[in-house]
């Protein structure tokens, strides 16, 4: 019977090509618009490390201004001071943890023909790589000794390695960054978490860094930092050391805490640490220390902006308007089939079989609308890329999940739109239709 319904559906679609095309266009437009925004929102709000996101915690200690919170309502700073970050690195009880900051420098390629270029880097600790499970193409991360001894080592991104070494294994070679020579110990393999949860402060959807170096080199070499810095009072001393000793926050800090016990212990440590600092005249605010897992952190930092959500809901409302139009078109289409439906009822078709027949027709229209919607969404995402540039390139693409979501949404939308017209068509009075044909 299904093949029979299928054949009838194709005939029916062909019989009213204009109406059928209008319905496909209405569904396609709605799906295209909504899938464009849903895809962007999906990429923005997705879990970048789903199997581990509840074990990774952004650390907040509130060392801020006694008179004003860092952010209303009483949100602790999203970054740490150098003093606190170093104290935590030394003593806090985590399985793994890493302070980190964004740096920038000029990279000087070897050879006379290649030109130097600006690059952004991440100064961090070795645990960064194991904690965030960064994939390595060549080599590995540096060791704890390199952290402690300010060794001049670096891990390159895949892109940087391709640019400088044509994608060959560069481990063991050297690279000049900011006028200093670093030994390459590893090359990452296309690491691009979306959102870039470990540093949402400096752009949750920015490209990952071009290179990674030990954090302690920032102080040792007084490196240029590229990230946000927030201060609530002037630094007491001049110079770089004065900045390091200041109450300015500029360091992101993450800890891997695999279970409830280690999480409780870590928070208790933070509170004890804050109490000690209070005795030293720091931390003037009431205790306000937190650890936030990945998804809590993305939510707290409002990674998906309200505007993006509003646009998504508007596009979904547009889809609803398109569906209302589809309902109207289906009512018209099915009204032209009243005589046929009346005849089929007269010769023995039950309402249920006719309902199934017409829902299949609507499903086919939904599939066609979905495919058109996917094309439009593809175009829409290209438009987003053209509008916002390469920074959103990795957000604005349809993956397999979204392909099936689009198709499923189109079919379910078409079925939803078809229920009332189909029900109405199947409930016509056959006698009336047969006499008036």
């Amino acid at each position, binding site marked *: *019977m299904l093949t*029979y319904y299928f054949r009838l559906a194709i*005939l029916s679609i*062909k*019989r009213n090509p204009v109406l059928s095309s209008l319905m496909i266009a209405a569904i396609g437009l709605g799906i295209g618009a909504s899938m464009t925004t849903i895809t962007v929102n999906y990429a923005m709000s997705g879990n970048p490390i789903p199997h581990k996101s509840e074990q990774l915690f952004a650390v907040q200690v509130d060392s801020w201004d006694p008179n004003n919170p860092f952010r209303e309502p009483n949100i602790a700073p999203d970054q740490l001071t150098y003093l606190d970050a170093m104290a935590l690195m030394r003593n806090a009880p985590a399985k793994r943890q890493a302070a980190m900051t964004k740096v920038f420098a000029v990279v000087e390629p070897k050879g006379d023909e290649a030109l130097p270029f600006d690059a952004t880097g991440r100064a961090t600790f070795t645990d960064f790589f194991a904690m965030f499970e960064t994939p390595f193409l060549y080599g590995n991360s540096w060791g704890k000794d390199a952290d402690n001894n300010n060794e001049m080592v670096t891990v390159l991104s895949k892109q940087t390695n391709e640019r400088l070494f044509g994608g060959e294994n560069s481990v063991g070679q050297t690279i000049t960054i900011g006028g200093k020579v670093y030994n390459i110990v590893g090359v990452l393999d296309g690491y691009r978490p979306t959102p870039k949860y470990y540093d949402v402060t400096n752009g949750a959807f920015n490209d990952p860094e071009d290179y990674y170096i030990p954090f302690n080199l920032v102080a040792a070499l007084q490196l240029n930092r590229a990230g946000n810095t927030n201060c609530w009072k002037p630094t007491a001393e001049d110079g770089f050391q004065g900045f390091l000793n200041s109450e300015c926050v500029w360091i992101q800090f993450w800890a891997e805490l695999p279970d409830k016990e280690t999480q409780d212990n870590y928070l208790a440590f933070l509170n004890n640490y804050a109490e000690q600092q209070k005795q030293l005249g720091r931390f003037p605010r009431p205790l306000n220390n937190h650890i936030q897992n990945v998804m809590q952190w993305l939510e707290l930092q409002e990674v998906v902006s309200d505007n993006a959500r509003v646009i998504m809901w508007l596009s979904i409302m547009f889809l609803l308007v398109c569906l209302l139009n589809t309902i109207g078109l289906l009512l018209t289409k099915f009204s032209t089939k009243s*005589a*046929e439906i*009346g*005849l*089929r*009822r*007269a*010769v*023995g*078709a*039950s*309402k*249920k*079989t006719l309902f199934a027949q017409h829902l299949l027709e609507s499903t086919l229209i939904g599939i066609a609308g979905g495919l058109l919607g996917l094309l439009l969404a593809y175009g829409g995402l290209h438009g987003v890329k053209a509008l916002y540039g390469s920074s959103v390139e990795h957000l604005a693409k349809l993956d397999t999940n979204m392909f099936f979501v689009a198709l499923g949404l189109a079919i379910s939308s078409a079925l939803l739109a078809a229920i009332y017209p189909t029900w109405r068509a199947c409930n016509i*009075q*056959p*006698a009336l239709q*047969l*006499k008036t*044909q």
Partner: protein
Amino acid sequence: MLVMNNIQKVFRTEQVETHALRDFSLKVEEGDFVAVTGPSGSGKTTFLNIAGLLETFSDGQYHLDGIDVRSLNDNQRSRVRNEKIGFIFQSFNLIPDLNLFDNVDVPLRYRKMSSSDRKQRIEQALETVGLASRMKHLPAQLSGGQQQRVAIARALAGSPRFLLADEPTGNLDSSMAESVMQLLEDINANGTTIIMVTHDPKLAARTPRNIFVKDGVVTEKKRSSMDGTDSLIMQPAIA
């Protein structure tokens, strides 16, 4: 076979109540060929629709082949229509984008029947109406008379006990009407019960039994002489 007792059919709107059938009683035996005549709006088609389970009635009793029609739900009514009744309409009611084969196939599709069985029945039905050679044609490629023959083939394909025909020759010229009437007579001669609504007194006169409907009330014309030419006596149809 088909027994209606005191059937009432009332159409109600907010302001008007129209009695389409009043105490309508009729008994049709197996193999009958009944012509139903009467003025426009008298209730002929309403009777045929009720007889064909296309409409419900307001009151009374109706047994079709021993089944109390009133007790049937919508699905059961569909099944009875499919298995026991064949319909022929004035305007043929063929589906324009299906060829003759597929048009005749329509009622068979709603039976659990193998495709080879369906094919055999369709070919046989089209053979009966003389259109076996045109089964791939579309309805629009046929004359009105041929289209009505296809409708008859569709009605016959399911081997129904009853054929209900509503003005089957109403849209045809006299020669086509004659051939369709001849076909119906042949079908009846093979044992199928036929109830035919018609405005044409000549066609009605050719059937063995005539009933007359006026203002929703049925009376039967009984022929007073064996040759049945002129003299008719009106009496209750169920007597």
